[in-house]
């Protein structure tokens, strides 16, 4: 049975990864999960300098979901290389580093620094965080800026580039096509959906940041539709994500056209989820007599 898939020049031993921001830098989960069983480890977003992040409360639980406004707290690229890279580079599976910036030049500089490390699996360009005042989502909601970010990174690295798209657009197609045309090797779909919650007793928004990004099982149908649409518009592979908590969820994304998937918020409440998804996918293929997972990609058909 073949579970391996390719994302640009990168081979994953299976199509199950984790979503940036839900898995720290890998090391935090290493006592609970055998990381070497995953398709890849995807780390939290890194920019050039350390980031303090937003005031608290930063998250709020809602029906079948979670709204967060962390503000991309992180150690900056040097802190990342010092504190986390020594662990990640020893893994047998690829480490995909999520990066962001507030200018096109910053994206390119972070990409250049990580390229120079040697051994990084791929770079995921976060052009879609809803919780950052400057940059962030702006790049993800303007196809021209999006192209500039991808092209600038493309110039400084041959590492596979994965562009993570925002769901907060009228149609995802022009964004998917812009990323592809600018040299992106793959797409991640989707980032969190802009949302909020209000405390009726205090009559205040729950989050200190007022709004945040919605994730968890409640966004899965939205993400699935975006993957379906993008898969029909581009040739590059798609990593599907949004509310995956079972193998069936992951298989839906693959059938919609995703080459790989990422488990996100479910890591917070059940760290075994990615491994359970891999086991369930294998089981499904066995039952259905499918030898190669690539035969499932985009296999959902319209018409009765």
């Amino acid at each position, binding site marked *: 049975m073949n579970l391996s898939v390719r994302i640009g020049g990168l081979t994953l031993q299976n199509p199950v990864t984790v979503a940036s921001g839900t898995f*720290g830098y890998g090391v935090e989960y290493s006592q609970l999960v055998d990381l070497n069983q995953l398709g890849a480890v995807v780390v*939290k977003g890194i920019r050039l300098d350390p980031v303090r992040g937003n005031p*608290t*409360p930063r998250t709020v*639980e809602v029906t*079948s979901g979670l709204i967060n406004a962390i503000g991309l707290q992180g150690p900056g690229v040097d802190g990342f290389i010092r504190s986390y890279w020594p662990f990640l580079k020893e893994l047998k599976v690829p480490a995909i580093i999520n990066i962001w910036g507030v200018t096109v030049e910053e994206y390119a500089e972070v990409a250049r620094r990580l390229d120079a490390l040697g051994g990084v699996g791929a770079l995921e360009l976060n052009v879609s965080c809803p919780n950052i005042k400057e940059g962030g989502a702006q790049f993800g909601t303007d196809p021209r800026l999006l192209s500039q970010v991808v092209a600038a990174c493309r110039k400084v690295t041959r590492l596979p580039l994965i562009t993570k798209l925002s769901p907060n657009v009228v149609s995802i197609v022009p964004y998917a096509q812009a990323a592809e045309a600018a040299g992106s090797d793959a797409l991640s779909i989707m980032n969190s959906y802009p949302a909020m919650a209000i405390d009726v007793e205090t009559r205040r928004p729950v989050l200190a940041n007022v709004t945040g990004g919605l994730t968890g099982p409640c966004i899965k149908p939205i993400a699935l539709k975006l993957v379906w649409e993008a898969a029909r518009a581009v040739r590059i592979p798609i990593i599907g994500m949004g509310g995956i908590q079972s193998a069936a969820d992951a298989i839906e994304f693959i059938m919609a056209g995703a080459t790989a998937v990422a488990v996100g*918020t479910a890591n917070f*409440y*059940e760290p*075994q989820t990615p491994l359970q998804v891999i086991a369930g996918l294998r089981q499904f293929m066995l039952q259905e007599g499918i030898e190669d997972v690539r035969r499932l990609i985009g296999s959902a058909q319209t018409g009765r």
Partner: protein
Amino acid sequence: MVEQTAQIVSNERDTDLYFRVVVRAAQIAPLVQPGQFVHVRILPLKQALLRRPFSVFQVSEGTLSLLYKAVGQGTEVLSRMRPGEELSLIGPLGHGFTVPHPGGEVPLLVAGGYGMAALFLLAERSPQRGIVFVGGRRRADILCEKEFRALGWELRVTTEDGSHGEKGMVTEALLAELKRRVPGRKLFACGPTPMLKAVGRLAAEHNLPAELSLDQHMGCGIGVCLTCVAPIKTAGGWEYQRTCTEGPVFDSRQIAWEAAQ
């Protein structure tokens, strides 16, 4: 840190809205240090996704117990679970209290409400007995008095309505004791944030060390989601650190309360 399924041995009402649940958790129980917590997935809770953190109250051969207040949808569902049903636990988690050395500091424990639960293991494992100051709004908020007395600790109870112990705030009872200026003491506190701030202030005024267990909303419990951060002083200023990982117990002098306003 271990993830395991834990069968409920008992789950009984303590007083009012407070409950004690005992679970079989042979892998986690022997590892627990005072002030650490377990992150609990309440499996029948379907709409809410996240685990709930609880300080470990007591441990014995292969079991551990939690003392909780049924205040939200998670704890409310938990309070209706019966012996034989299962929870999923990750633990032990967090950086707990520093147990005093033999002949070292005499601990003064300060608890508000179910904060008492987080302090029991410290009292049990401290080589020196000290005094525990416990406060609450009313009689029903004063928990596990019997267990602390059984350890031979002196208790000073305060309630805001005077229905049990002295009428007043727990920090008033603490201040009265600190005025005696007995040297060689250290404060350990767990309770609501205003109480922790007051304990930190009293410790500074009386030049005593204090360890405070912070109570923050938590997400993943293992250091990745960055929900539970608190402002902690650094050489150059302050930064957000994780209550679940660097905490929940911090040296009170390290907490930059004013920074996060």
